[in-house]
């Protein structure tokens, strides 16, 4: 668990990748959007439904980053 600052999830991510530059490519695309293989929760809510990187963050909120878990046979038969 780490601490980061920002008024929005996007600002929190900017602070996070400033602290940990190696995380940038895992969290954000080259365009600065959220990586689609990453699920991000603001407390209990998926930020996809809260405005994504524009979601407002309050002090003591928890932002949880989790990789998407997916796959499948892909079999077309």
């Amino acid at each position, binding site marked *: 668990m780490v601490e980061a600052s920002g008024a929005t999830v996007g600002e929190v991510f900017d602070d996070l990748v400033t602290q940990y530059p190696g995380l940038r490519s895992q969290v954000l695309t080259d365009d600065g959007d959220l990586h689609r293989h990453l*699920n991000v929760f603001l407390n209990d809510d998926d930020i996809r439904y809260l405005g994504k990187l524009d979601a407002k963050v309050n002090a003591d909120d928890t932002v949880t980053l989790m990789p998407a878990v997916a796959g499948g*046979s892909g079999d077309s038969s």
Partner: protein
Amino acid sequence: MLRLSRDVYRQMVGHCLDGLPLEACGLLGGDPETDRASLCYPTGNAAASARLYTVDPRDHLRADRDAEGRGLEVIGVFHSHTHTDAYPSPTDVAQAPDPTWHYVLVSLRDVAPVVRSYRIVDGKIAEESIVLE
């Protein structure tokens, strides 16, 4: 090696059978030091497909928090293949999110489910034994 409690095994296979005709998925919680999965977290398949699975993100969050609250971790994922072998597909390999996890495949192609476990690291698949405890 993956150690599975019998309860986890039954819950896992049961969830996969219940998911037919679609692929079902879930997470395994346990101790990464001993590779023992003592918790089964059946999750929703957000892809709702007979060929693809996506662990419902909210179910993943719940499982992660529950495991952490018990001093454990999510140590793997299971999913079913409804018509193909219990072997990771190219899709499974390409999207494997964590090289430390166990990847369990449950094939429902035949009447009797076939369950196998693998490690997937840097695109390489290595089968591992499953020990029921």
